[in-house]
């Protein structure tokens, strides 16, 4: 039997056992997301399309599936969705500038050796593709952080309806601080685990620090980690602010007074 099929069956069984119906839905969502990525690749295959736009649309679908399909449409998933989209749009400008300036697009010398039989001059725009890749490797973490903030904020508001908008916002930020460290940690280990081979390669071939810090693949990987970290950090105030405004929108009069006194 194919090892991937076996691992997928084990994962499905565990998710159903631990999470019940929600676990099953989470597994299906994972599968749909995989199909979305493949679809995005197919669309990017057309040289006239813009990979960045395609990635943005794919990210929209991915966050919709991860939020609405697993948790149903309600105000906390809606807020998390909007916060994810806002963060992605802000982040994309940062990534575009970064990819172009640091020229981390395309394949590194270390990678290109393996595809000598293939033609890589295929008329696609690798600058935009690199931007799309960085954005898409971050999306999972941004969605996770967004829902981890909007969900407890609604709880806090329900348990304490008289809380002021500012206090609610600060509560969101406090929750965010707890998540910030563990989420960046998750991505850090994920990327390093994926690049163990590269790290050993650097050591084996005795790259100097100067060689490593200027290498394309190393920068590609590190900038992805940093950009993801920036994304996670950005979604915290955005999700908190959106939730605070949305949940307290009916009591604006009291808030305005409070703010004008300041």
């Amino acid at each position, binding site marked *: *039997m*194919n090892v*991937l099929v*076996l691992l997928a069956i084990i*994962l499905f069984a*565990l*998710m159903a056992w*631990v*999470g019940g119906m*929600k*676990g099953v839905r*989470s597994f299906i969502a994972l599968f749909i*997301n995989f199909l979305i990525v493949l679809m*995005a*690749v197919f669309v990017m295959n057309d040289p006239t399309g813009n990979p960045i736009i395609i990635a943005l649309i794919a990210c929209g679908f991915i966050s919709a599936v991860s939020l609405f399909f*697993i948790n149903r449409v309600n105000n906390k998933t809606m807020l998390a969705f909007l916060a994810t989209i806002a963060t992605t749009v802000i982040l994309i400008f940062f990534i575009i500038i970064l990819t172009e300036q*640091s*020229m981390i697009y*395309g*394949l590194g*010398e270390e*990678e290109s050796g393996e*595809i000598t039989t293939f*033609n*890589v001059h*295929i*008329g*696609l*725009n690798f600058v935009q*593709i690199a931007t799309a890749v960085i954005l*898409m490797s971050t999306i*999972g973490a941004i969605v*996770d952080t967004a*829902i981890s903030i909007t969900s407890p904020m609604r709880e806090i508001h329900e348990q304490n309806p008289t809380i002021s908008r500012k206090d609610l916002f600060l509560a969101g930020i406090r929750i965010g*601080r707890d998540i910030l*460290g*563990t*989420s*960046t*940690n*998750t*991505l*850090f*280990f*994920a990327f*390093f*685990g994926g690049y163990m*081979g*590269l790290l*050993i*390669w650097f050591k*084996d*071939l005795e790259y100097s620090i*100067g060689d490593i810090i200027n*290498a*394309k693949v190393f920068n590609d990987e*590190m*900038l992805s980690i*940093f950009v*993801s970290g920036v994304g996670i950090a950005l979604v915290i105030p955005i999700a908190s602010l959106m939730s605070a405004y949305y949940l307290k929108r009916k009591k604006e009069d009291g808030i305005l007074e409070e703010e004008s006194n300041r």
Partner: protein
Amino acid sequence: MKTWLKNRTKAQVITVGLLLIGFIASMIFINNNYDLYDRTIVQITDVQEINREEQVDTHGNEDEHVTQHIVGEIKNGSDKGQVTAFDNEYIQSLALDYELAAGDEIFLAQDGKATGDIKRDKYFVFVAWIFLIILLAVGKSRGALSALSLLVNAVILSIALDIYIHNPSIGLSIITLVSIIIFTVLSLLMATGFNEKTYTAILTTLLGTGLSLVIAYVALHFTGEQGLRYEEMAFLTRNPQTIFMAGLLIGSLGAVMDVAITLSASMFEMYEKNNRIDLKTLKKAGYEVGKDIMGTMTNILFFAYVSGSIPMLLIYLKNAAPFGFTVSMNLSLELARALVGGIGIVLTIPIAIYISIFFIRRKQAKL
């Protein structure tokens, strides 16, 4: 601005000042460190496109071959200050080469007649600062601690790999296992301090990682690793299986830690709110939290792994490689990583719940 300053403590003002000085000093340094490099660095002053012709490959992919005439100033070595000229050729899709513009700084190729690589150190440092500043702005002292913990982990990983390279007899698996214990203990202690919820999370992480290792190992052996295409694993200098297994464990470690600390923190919080809480209610609440995080956590790993393969997938497809072959060649290892990571995440949920309940039961017995 004045009122803003008034509301800050002295420590905050000093921190902001120090960060600002560190940022400016390191940016000035990294933009003027030419003499530290042996390779010749050229700062480009003028670029002229001298030729552009279309080319079509056997699969009908249209591209353009461009030649640029580059004039630049040598920034280091014996020819420092001299002006040099060379031609830079690139293919418009930019898969392997670079389109240069005035102001760019590059390393010259060995023969001095072409572009070797780009000087990227300044971008690396700049983005590292942006990351640090945003982490501090949102997370304050917690942000500083997480940045520190990332740095410490990177150093440990580097030392561990050094030990492995210089003592091949020890074996990567043992070094990985030892590093995993160190990573877990240090990261979790730095995240939540010395208390029972941290101990619970440490124990949970080690058990969860160990158990998912056993499952992955059994699954790989049971199927004879059918479906895994190591030949496309990039950057290989050594046995791919060992490196892959080590990467598998390290890759899911962060996510497992995340789940462990989230669950133990919320269970201990429920206990602190109500010391006499019924253990069955507590268990049920724990499972609710677990169900909530399971889906999005597995997504994080999935996208972190799979997205990186997109450029290679496109190259395969554009070279008319069959779809199934393309996916199995480029995604098999990434999907295995994501699946094993997912298994680790889901397994960690019940482990965290039972270990938390074990500690809480002991606490309740003492009441």
